[in-house]
């Protein structure tokens, strides 16, 4: 059993527990144990990167520093936002000497109190970007290997036509993220093939879903999400796979409003890529958290004994 540090992020513990649960269950079947760093906090969800303020970066850097201090070299996350924040904050510590100096000066006087023992911990070492931040897709591709995933499949997904949705956070800015080519990505599509789906090519895979406009300009978010879903639908997708809880919110929960506004739209199930992974590896259907979907995705996860892969 290999062990990796895993950062779920806040949303996975509240609104989208299905993303968290399916991730853990799937990785168990791939002989990977995910360990949460002790007392992790919110990463700051994008805000640390929006302004040239140092204080916002303290949260993600503290998480990374704890991982290092607990002996971790790698931190895995599935949420695109957490991934973006952790990776870019980490990169700033590696490449920007001024930021590095200022944040370390700020974190020098940290006091961490154990909630149970009330024990105080001080004297943290400076952090210089030693931990490698990985998205789960990267872990699957580079550390576990897609062929390994393919070999462990227990269920046949029968070439389900799935549109991979990268959204805005996974790929850009390329120089900092470096996950894949922003204009011609394929890591997600390769994953879909590995779990037995047929990836659907459509031009909106890297377009924004509307993100925070969900709150301030809901109409704009509705339109943005509609165009993504419509494009995937036009190319014949049976489902759209995401890795980000916020994308999931806009693309799934918002479909009621989309249908009201755009009469031609007839719905498209949205799933987390980890649900597809877990399902193909043989995880029990009840663990997938399908009740958290507004648009039912139940029909995609039908147990059919005949379809089971005999290994």
């Amino acid at each position, binding site marked *: 059993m290999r062990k990796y540090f895993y950062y779920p992020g806040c949303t996975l513990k509240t609104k989208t527990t299905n993303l968290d649960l399916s991730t853990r269950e799937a990785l168990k079947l791939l002989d990977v144990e995910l360990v949460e760093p002790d007392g992790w906090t919110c990463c700051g969800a994008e805000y640390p990167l929006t302004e040239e303020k140092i204080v916002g970066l303290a949260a993600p850097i503290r998480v990374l520093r704890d991982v290092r201090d607990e002996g971790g070299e790698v931190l895995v996350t599935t949420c695109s936002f957490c991934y973006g924040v952790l990776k870019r904050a980490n990169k700033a510590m590696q490449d920007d000497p001024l930021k590095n100096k200022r944040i370390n000066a700020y974190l020098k006087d940290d006091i961490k109190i154990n909630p149970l023992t009330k024990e105080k911990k001080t004297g943290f070492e400076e952090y210089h970007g030693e931990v490698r931040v990985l998205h789960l897709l990267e872990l699957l591709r580079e550390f576990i290997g897609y062929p390994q995933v393919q070999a462990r499949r227990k269920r046949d997904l029968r070439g389900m036509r799935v549109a991979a949705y990268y959204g805005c956070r996974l790929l850009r800015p390329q120089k900092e993220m470096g996950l894949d*080519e922003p*204009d*011609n990505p394929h890591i997600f599509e390769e994953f879909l093939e590995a779990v037995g789906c047929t990836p659907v090519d459509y*031009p*909106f895979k890297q377009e924004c879903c509307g993100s925070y406009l969900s709150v301030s300009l809901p109409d704009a978010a509705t339109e943005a999400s509609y165009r993504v879903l419509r*494009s995937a639908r*036009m190319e014949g997708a049976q489902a759209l796979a995401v890795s980000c809880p916020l994308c999931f919110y806009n693309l799934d929960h918002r479909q009621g409003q989309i249908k009201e506004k755009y009469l031609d739209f007839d719905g498209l199930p949205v799933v987390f890529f980890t649900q597809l992974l877990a399902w193909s590896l043989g995880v029990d259907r009840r663990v997938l958290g399908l009740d958290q979907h507004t648009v039912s995705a139940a029909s995609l996860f039908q147990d059919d004994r005949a379809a089971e892969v005999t290994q």
Partner: protein
Amino acid sequence: MTPKKKDKRIGLFVCHCGVNIAGVVDVEKVAERLKDYPGVAFSTHYVYVCSDPGQQMIIDTIKEKKLDAIIVAACSPTLHEKTFREAAKMAGLNPYQIEIANIREQDSWVHKDKDKATKKAVKIIKSYVEKSLQNESLEPIKVDIHKRALIIGGGISGLQAALDIADHGYEVLLVEKNPSIGGKMIQLSETFPTLDCSQCILTPKMVEVSRHPNIRLLTYHEVDSVSGFVGNFKVRIKKKPRYVDESLCNLCGECEKVCPQVVPDEFNMGLSFRKAIYMPFPQAVPGTYTLDAANCLGLLPVRCGKCKDVCDPKAINYDMKETIFEEEVGAIVVATGYDLYSLQAIGEYGGEKYDDVVDGLEFERILSASGPTGGEVRRPSDGKVPKSIVFVQCSGSRDTEKHNPYCSKICCMYTAKHAMLYKHRVPDGQAIVFYIDVRAGGKGFDEFYQRTVEEDKALYIRGKVSKIFKEGDKLIVWGVDTLTGKKVEVETDMVVLAMAMVKADGVEELVKKLKISTDTHGFLAEAHPKLRPVESLNAGFYLAGCAHGPKDIPEAVAQASAAAAKVGDLFAQTELIHEPTTVPVNTDLCSGCAICLTMCPYDARSLDRERGVVVVNEVLCEGCGACAAACPSGAAQQRNQTDDQIFAMVQAILGE
């Protein structure tokens, strides 16, 4: 070792260079302080030594004071060394007895403190006095010239240069790697701003080249290697097997009819197909079929042989082999042209994915009367006439972040031409052009662009395009209108990308063979951006056309003619003069270790195994001094730059 000639009479002329030197260095004091320095027989200062009266002063003083050598303390020797050497020659002095002490670039221009700068000037001059005392009188090395030119590339630039040099009366070898000459220009439809048919104005030149008694046309040939030096290059040329005897082929076309192999046609940018045995285009020069071995079945062990069976004049020969021959030439004109930036490089524009997103050259073929659609504007995917076309300028140009930072120069004009021609062919069509700004600086260019906007109603949107994708039958173009500050979404039938012009594919290998330099983008570098724009820094190499950077047809032609004129200058001389400041070998000291051979970038040195010493071809030696620095025994000493001289100079600077 040359004995020190302490009995020399040296004249010193300190230049004010207006205030350039005199503003910081006290020139009077410098002249005064060196008056009595050993070896200096005369010392003065003057406001502009390079002026006519200044030079006359040098000539008169040399005669009057019976000077053996002079030192001019002035600007860098790259500027006026030649001037003063000529002056000295007029006074009967050997030109290699002239030294320039640089007290401008190396002193007055880089210092402020007058006192220290003056002291430094004195030291610099003293070091040159020491050097001058040991200078020998040298005679230039004279070399013969092979009055033949090699031209690499048979596009418009190469053709023009070949014709001009041939008309000067010199022999020309024109090497073209493709089966026919004509280059990119022969693929174009009509040319801006006059809308002349490109083929109609180029084919007469192609025919002229093929018939010119002074031009030897070598199509389907490549330069294999080049050695030698200006006036005396040895070029190895590779003849690629055409498998068709040019002199026998009568263009009946029977071979093409029976050939079973169909491949994309390069001439039509892959928009149509050709056979494995083919003629690139009807007016190809030389007029002959070529068998493309990479696609032919017949050259494989199991032969197809259909074309050979039907060839009446027996022109087809599968046993032709690649051959290499050597030629001697005196000058080389590099006119290797350009290529377009690849559509794949800009993923978000979808050029790779969608057939109806084409580049400028593909659209030229679509517009051309000899093109795949016979000049009708039809889109590649389904042959429909596009009711609107979006043109995207600066695709891959002027993008410092991801693509090429430079302007490709011709795209504004050819896009205006594309929009105009499209409107002429499809009167109810709408041309939409995305641009950063329209650069129409040329004779009749802006008027042409205005016509496209006003008469042909092209819609110009100022802004860049972010993404192009397909929805159903239509292409959707996302962009921005920076004049209104709004996002724009355009639905269209076809997109033409004005892709950046980039260095020709594979030119880097040729450049290595020629040992000439390029700029950061792989275009050939000129010797001086303003004063020597058509020459390479390496003597004997000349640049023409887009190999040197993006340019339009008239500019390419002008540069080709200029390069030809430069070649004419070279060939008009009876012999070439080579600098005598070479590095000979003192055979008494040389142990034959051959370390200097590895240092020499010009292949000027070789080992005489019988005598166990190194010998030097002084004609090849450029006097860089690398061997002299590497020689462990001091056998390699550069003329007028010996170790003794350098030590004496160092001592003069450190002394006092």
